[in-house]
């Protein structure tokens, strides 16, 4: 029986449920503790520093010979900022590390850090992207001509011609405020110094152990063989742990130079001020529609606040450039003119967060579709039906090729599930009672599993994408699968085991997945961008196929049959059409211990490797939110949330649904609750989980998930990625629903999170206008 497609329970869970699993903070025992002295202001010159007598304090001056974080994007309009590991002569954001303190315990280290006095001469900060773009704004980085540190333009050249004949133009200004991915586990690093090998092992809460090793070795001028990076269990990441944190490099430097074992466990306040932030986009877009309500041209001006420094390896180009390339989403039009800019400010650096730009660009496109529908007197389903792509492969106006999907089918299925027509009746009845119900649709594409062919056009100095898997069967018949991906909650150990078990006809208990250890697993790019099941899964399937062939060859020798006649199932290799067979574990013994029995050209042992580097595959989905808005308080209650998802073949449906539900909740949070707030001076006003408002079980309705399964040949497993879709689609569905609810008042919501305060302001303004 096939395991692929079965909702088996996760192999990861027993250790997590019993508290046995080790996370980063669980590995700190026996280490001295590190705490960081951080900038209390957004922008200042460092004039001096006083440290307590006898305290162990290290500054940039101690780190001589160490490089700066300086990610490179080969684009003429890219500004290469230098980020010192510890601030040199100025600080550029609140929370920037200035010095590292070492003490026997974390509590004592924090006491010392508090007692270090840093003399700062304040400089006028640049906080918001709107201010940063004005002529009189200070410029964050010396040597830059402006605060625009990366920009791009796409112009198909025919927008003006096409839009002249448009019968409707929909123009909107849209804001998505700043977020933090806020994994429940903060960042942390434990560096163990091995005196005998003169080698550091860095245990780090990270999504990409190999890339982290490369980055740190480049900075510290080390051989990669002298640093081992291990990702223990990681307590959520969502992108916040995919880029290089300066702190991790400092810990390795200290451990190497002091020959000591050291631990730094971030606290929540540091996580809010100094770990990577996300979003903070402002868009202007204008769509031109013809008489049939078809979008014929789109213009955009997209601005992303990218913070104080560029993130390694993806750079601060990742948000604006992705927004520019993927704004068209699932809609069919070929006239496009867009400018995208990344703007540097005195705020925390940004790292891609689940969905990257797509929650915002989906919001933009889906808001535009709803407004256009109103103008044309169409319902939100019909306008989308007329504009969605239907022919595959589809080449978008920006040159991206979409593989087969079910865009229209997912929309129609969603409309059927929510019974759109009867909702409209219910909504009208509710309005007669003074209640404001609304429905919001969101259709989107999720580009997933991109390998180097998709990353190459970005011109990053580091081009990620492929994955390699090394597989070996040991003499007892067990299979070790060493992967470069680095799962942290996605259940990849389970799903990859399902793939291997099916290929080799073995039970799950015979399979071990090894990941997250640079001394044990092949070089890989880790886990991000909804890539693991597609790319690492693909490499796993390819390697398993090769291992199957190797096992079949040994079986052929032993059973005196042709390898192609051997079938592996239920732990046995059998000759097709006969009852002759042998246990696979016995073949493993033969392969290692009885090689004289095998064909003379047979290599000893059983092993196989494979790499996979696909161009990528598009998942698609339609989300529908039904809300009720209390116009007195501005509060939004979610009554229903429906997802119709097409992520190709489902390897483990229950894990798939878990990814979707978790993603949707982060999207709802983006739409209604979460915001990192900076004041005009660059102080963060939201430094606790109490202020930041991640949603709890009470705010979230049950999420209903339906599947379509379009099988693509762009993925060798047939699976498409889906880790981000929930977060991408949900904000637009929720904001469209809130706007639909408030339509009788003439309110259009163009800002998220749509907090009660903001909704009330919109209602007040609308009432004032009509009065």
């Amino acid at each position, binding site marked *: 029986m096939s395991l692929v497609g079965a909702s088996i329970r996760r192999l990861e869970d027993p250790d997590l449920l*019993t508290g046995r699993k080790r996370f980063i903070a669980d590995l700190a025992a026996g280490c001295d503790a590190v705490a960081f002295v951080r900038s209390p202001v957004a922008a200042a010159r460092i004039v001096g520093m006083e440290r307590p007598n006898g305290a162990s304090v290290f500054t940039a001056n101690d780190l001589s010979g160490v490089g700066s974080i300086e990610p490179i994007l080969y684009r003429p309009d890219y500004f290469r900022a230098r980020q010192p590991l510890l601030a040199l002569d100025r600080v550029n954001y609140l929370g920037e590390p200035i010095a590292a303190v070492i003490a026997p315990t974390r509590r004592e280290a924090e006491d010392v850090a508090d007692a270090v006095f840093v003399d700062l001469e304040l400089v006028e900060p640049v906080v918001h992207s709107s201010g940063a773009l004005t002529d009189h704004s200070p410029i964050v980085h010396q040597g830059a001509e402006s605060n625009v540190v990366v920009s791009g333009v796409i112009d198909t050249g025919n927008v003006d011609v096409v839009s002249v004949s448009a019968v409707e133009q929909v123009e909107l200004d849209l804001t998505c405020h700043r977020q933090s991915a806020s994994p429940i586990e903060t960042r942390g690093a434990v560096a163990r110094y091995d005196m005998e090998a003169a080698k550091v092992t860095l245990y780090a809460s990270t999504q990409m152990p190999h890339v982290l090793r490369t980055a740190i070795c480049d900075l510290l001028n080390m051989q990669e063989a002298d640093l081992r990076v291990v990702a223990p269990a990681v*307590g959520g990441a969502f992108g916040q742990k995919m880029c290089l944190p300066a702190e991790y490099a400092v810990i390795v430097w200290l451990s190497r130079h002091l020959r000591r074992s050291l631990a730094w466990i971030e606290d929540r306040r540091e996580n809010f001020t100094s770990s990577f932030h996300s979003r903070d986009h402002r868009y202007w877009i204008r769509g031109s529609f013809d008489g049939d309500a078809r979008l014929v041209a789109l213009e955009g001006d997209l601005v992303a606040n990218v913070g104080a420094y560029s993130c390694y390896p993806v750079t601060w180009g990742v948000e604006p450039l992705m927004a520019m390339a993927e704004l068209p989403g699932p809609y069919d039009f070929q006239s496009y003119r867009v400018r995208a800019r990344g703007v540097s400010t005195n705020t925390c650096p940004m790292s891609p967060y689940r969905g990257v730009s797509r929650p915002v660009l989906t919001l933009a496109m889906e808001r535009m579709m709803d407004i256009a529908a109103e103008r044309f007197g169409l319902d939100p389903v019909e306008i989308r039906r007329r504009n969605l792509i239907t022919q595959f492969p589809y080449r978008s106006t920006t040159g991206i090729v979409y593989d087969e999907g079910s865009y229209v089918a997912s929309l129609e299925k969603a409309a059927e599930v929510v019974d759109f027509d009867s909702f409209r009746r219910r909504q009208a009845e509710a309005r007669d009672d003074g209640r404001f119900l609304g429905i919001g649709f969101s259709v989107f594409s999720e580009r997933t599993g991109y390998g180097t062919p998709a990353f190459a056009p970005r011109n990053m100095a580091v081009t990620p994408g492929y994955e390699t898997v090394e597989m070996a069967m040991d003499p007892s018949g067990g299979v070790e699968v060493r992967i470069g991906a680095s799962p942290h909650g996605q259940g990849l150990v389970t799903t990859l085991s399902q793939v291997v078990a099916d290929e080799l006809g073995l039970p799950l208990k015979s399979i071990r997945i090894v990941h997250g250890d640079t001394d044990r697993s092949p070089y890989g790019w880790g886990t991000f961008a909804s890539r693991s099941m597609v790319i690492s899964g693909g490499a796993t399937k390819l390697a398993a196929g090769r291992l199957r062939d190797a096992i079949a060859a040994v079986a052929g020798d032993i059973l005196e049959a042709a390898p192609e006649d051997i079938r592996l199932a239920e732990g046995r290799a059998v000759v097709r059409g006969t009852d002759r067979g042998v246990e696979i574990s016995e073949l493993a013994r033969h392969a290692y211990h009885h090689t004289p029995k095998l064909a003379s050209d047979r290599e000893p042992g059983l092993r196989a490797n494979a790499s996979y580097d696909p161009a990528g595959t598009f998942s698609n989905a339609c989300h529908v939110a039904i809300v009720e808005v209390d116009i007195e308080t501005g509060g939004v209650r979610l009554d229903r949330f429906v997802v119709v998802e097409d992520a190709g073949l489902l390897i483990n449906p229950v894990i798939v649904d*878990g990814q979707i539900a978790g993603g949707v909740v982060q999207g709802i949070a983006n739409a209604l609750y979460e915001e990192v707030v900076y004041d005009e001076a660059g102080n963060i006003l939201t430094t606790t989980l109490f202020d930041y408002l991640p949603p709890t079980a009470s705010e979230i309705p049950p999420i209903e998930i339906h599947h379509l399964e379009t099988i693509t040949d762009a993925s060798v497993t047939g699976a498409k990625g889906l880790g981000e879709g929930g977060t991408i689609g949900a904000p637009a569905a929720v904001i469209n629903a809130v706007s639909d609810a408030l339509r009788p008042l003439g309110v259009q919501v163009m800002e998220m999170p749509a907090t009660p305060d903001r909704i009330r302001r919109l209602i007040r303004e609308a009432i004032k206008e009509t009065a």
Partner: protein
Amino acid sequence: MSSLRAVTLSVNGVECKVEVEPRKTLADTLREDCGLTGTHLGCEHGVCGACTILIDGSPVRSCLLFAVQCEGVAIETVEGLASDGQLHPLQQAFWDHHGLQCGFCTPGFLMLAKGALAENPDLTGDALREVLSSNLCRCTGYQNIVTAVEDAAARMRS
């Protein structure tokens, strides 16, 4: 640095003698001095609930208590849930219903649910969601946690 105080804690029915600073939280003491790292710290300011344990059967945030306050009370942590290699019904239900992803918040949710069900074995629906809103989970979207606790409650009643 302040002086150390000798404290005897009762954790999962076992005596744990430790010497700690008065300012040391119960969470840090359990993790560092008792060697029980299954209790996790997500915020250290009492919001996320990852460090939830039971004291005399009631869920509390172990990051908001000092170890020196906890002599003479019965402390239960996630390590005490399974017995003889048998998962507790809550652990089994979380496993069966995919009630965890990264698993970092899970010990806190298990202990919260254990305490809540001890107080009201019939907890379900919105009332259950209200109780579970004490803790934060970033991965699951909560639905599977709610389902798991409802299922465990049913198993524990029967």
